[in-house]
């Protein structure tokens, strides 16, 4: 029996590859694509991302939509709460006030009375406006002068007359002009006669409600009246609209928040980017080189870490100094970078040491990869996750540092606003004008929060242990 098989030549031809064998059924995902998918599943992180984008738009695009000069002062509208646009009446230019001094009445009291009666017939000599309130009254016998007080509610007694505005020095000087931060609201003016030294226990009160007023010239200066436009005195005019209110110099809060965002976010984002970058270079270098040099470099980083952060922040900030007209943002940035880099450098070095020992680096080296290729193509991308997370957490820290420095008066120099310095101003008036504190504080909080949550989300998304397996 001839049972042995004789191989043919064709038997030695390569087998056709089996197309239906193992197949990658889904498109392969790179590390970043995968991370992005998982980040998208994290609602909180996603919302934070949108907030961050929103903040960026607010900062960069905002000023083009809301074209109000953040430095423009509007002393007619100081510390206004957010409100709809207000209308004001137009008045003529301010004329100096000439006090009413009676010739036929004695300036010095002729007799010293135990208690001087209050002055009668207090009235305003001109219609009261927020430009000025001018009071006149009838003289009282025995008076050697009058003290003028102003309150925002009905006085309940001699101890509740409100602000001591000033006094006149003579029983015959029976007028007073008030221009102190007038608003369009009810005021109660009280006049107390004095004998030239001691005050009487009697007073008389007048209620006055000044009308919001702006002078003609100012309206033209501010562009409220167009060129060639003819307006009559005492006619009504719409004032500038301040949707977020104004600050203590009548500057538009919205415009200042936008400009402040530039400073706060610039410091908040640039500083971490710079020191992280420096940290990567330094740490990556040290970690990769290893040996004595690594020891030395890391020892130096340890020194810098040991510097008390806030103390040195203040010291550096002052040492760099601020020239005239400079905002001091750059010195603050430099100080932050000087003190901030060692943290990242240590972190990156640790990562590099770990990655360097891994198989794929060895493989790449065997395939002929040069040092710089290895570093750029393999090592750095693999540390990216950790770095990104550090970065997102460094942003809120930097924003807080800026705010803190502004609070102790060593932040950016006015008129440049930052959220921190706006907060610092706002804290002082938080009872009377809460909006001056709330807005910048809310912006700081939102930003810090968004970056924190984004950092959390990134940590989870970039953690390779959590890579999606389906």
């Amino acid at each position, binding site marked *: 029996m001839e049972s042995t098989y004789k191989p043919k030549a064709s038997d030695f031809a390569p087998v056709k590859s089996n197309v239906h064998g193992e197949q990658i059924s889904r498109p392969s995902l790179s590390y970043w694509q995968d991370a992005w998918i998982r980040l998208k599943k994290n609602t909180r992180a996603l919302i934070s991302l949108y907030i961050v984008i929103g903040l960026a738009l607010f900062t960069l695009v905002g000023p083009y939509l809301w074209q109000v000069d953040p430095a423009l002062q509007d002393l007619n509208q100081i510390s206004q709460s957010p409100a709809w646009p207000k209308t004001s009446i137009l008045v003529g230019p301010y004329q100096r006030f000439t006090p009413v001094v009676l010739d036929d009445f004695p300036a010095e009291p002729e007799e010293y009375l135990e208690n001087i009666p209050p002055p009668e017939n207090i009235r305003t000599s001109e219609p009261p406006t927020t430009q000025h309130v001018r009071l006149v009254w009838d003289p009282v016998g025995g008076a050697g002068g009058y003290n003028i007080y102003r309150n925002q509610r009905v006085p309940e007694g001699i101890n509740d007359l409100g602000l001591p505005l000033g006094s006149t020095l003579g029983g015959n000087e029976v007028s007073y002009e008030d221009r102190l931060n007038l608003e369009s609201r009810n005021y109660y003016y009280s006049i107390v006669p004095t004998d030239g030294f001691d005050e009487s226990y009697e007073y008389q009160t007048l209620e006055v409600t000044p009308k919001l007023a702006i002078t003609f010239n100012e309206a033209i200066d501010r562009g409220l009246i167009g060129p060639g436009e003819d307006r009559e005195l005492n006619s009504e005019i719409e004032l500038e609209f301040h949707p977020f209110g104004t600050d203590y110099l009548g500057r538009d809060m919205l415009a200042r928040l936008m400009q402040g965002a530039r400073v706060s976010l610039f410091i908040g984002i640039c500083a971490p980017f710079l020191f992280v970058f420096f940290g990567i270079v330094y740490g990556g270098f040290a970690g990769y080189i290893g040996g004595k040099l690594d020891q030395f470099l890391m020892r130096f980083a340890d020194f810098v870490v040991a510097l008390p952060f806030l103390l*040195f922040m203040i010291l550096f900030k002052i040492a760099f100094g601020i020239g005239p007209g400079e905002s001091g943002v750059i010195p603050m940035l430099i100080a932050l970078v000087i003190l901030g880099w060692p943290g990242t450098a240590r972190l990156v070095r640790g990562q590099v040491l770990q990655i360097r020992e891994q198989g794929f680096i060895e493989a790449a080296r065997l395939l002929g990869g040069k040092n710089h290729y290895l570093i750029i193509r393999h090592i750095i991308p693999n540390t990216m996750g950790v770095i990104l997370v550090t970065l997102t957490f460094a942003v809120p820290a930097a924003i807080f540092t800026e705010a803190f420095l502004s609070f102790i008066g060593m932040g950016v120099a006015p008129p440049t606003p930052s959220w921190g310095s706006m907060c610092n101003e706002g804290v002082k008036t938080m009872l009377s004008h809460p909006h001056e504190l709330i807005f910048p504080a809310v912006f700081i909080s939102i930003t810090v929060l968004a970056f924190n949550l984004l950092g959390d989300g990134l940590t989870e998304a970039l953690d390779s242990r959590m890579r999606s397996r389906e």
Partner: protein
Amino acid sequence: MLAYTAKRLLAGLVTVWFIATATFIAMHQVPGDPLMNDKAVSAEIRANLEKKYGLDKPVVEQYFIFMGNMLQGDFGISFTQQNRKVNDIIRDHFPVSATLGILAIVFATLGGVLWGALTALYRNRLPDIVIMFLVILGISVPSFVFAALGQLFLVNLNSFVGSSIVPVAGWGTIMHMIMPSLVLGLGTMALLTRLMRSSMLEVVNEDYIKTARAKGLSPTRIFFRHQLRNAILPVITVLGPQIAAITTGGFVVELVFAIPGLGRYFVQAVQQLDYTVIMGTTVFYGAFLVFMVIIVDILYGFIDPRVRLK
């Protein structure tokens, strides 16, 4: 162990030297003149002042003189408080800052561990949501806003009760310390709560918890003996740096609550360019932090047997 400690201490000393040198250099970069005051003085008086403070010597010589004195533990005499030794200033005011800092850390740790454990226990239920919201507030609102609000709260509390049960500012009794240390510890407390929460959630899935449960241990026992104890470890690691942040970060609170701490002195000294006080406080704080970290590291070796000190 001993060798390790000695090595760390030596490194610490070198670090302190580095801090002192960095401070010295930075300070002399500050423009301005420490000897100037509101009233201008004649050249003769100025020369005398310079001589008194040794500023007439070259900077390098000043550096060596300062280092020499520092080695003997003498920081010199304050420029602004002309009869006070910097050593006395530190001795008088550091304990205040330290008390404030320690209390704040205690508050923060107790609060953080408690809230963190609670949120993990009630994960995604109402207590978790409420506490986490407060935590978010805690990490995202600057401390000076909290300080101002805290003081305002005390004023209203006192006028509501009708007598001043809690002082609104000042220092001296335990009552004075409560609000400032709460405010100071708030940020750290928020941080620790977050940390504690995630660490608790991680521990829940560990094998030894499952084993304990399988053994039939009561949930309370598992919670306290196994879960809490293991979850607390990462919290302890961050305490070291946090202590540093808190003790030097007390300026704002010291300012708002009129507390005679060292932080206020430093800010004032920088403003006044008081060379000796700047040097003294920075070097002292720096040394304090360096050795604090060393101590925490060594202690950690005792607490966690997995960590071996080399």
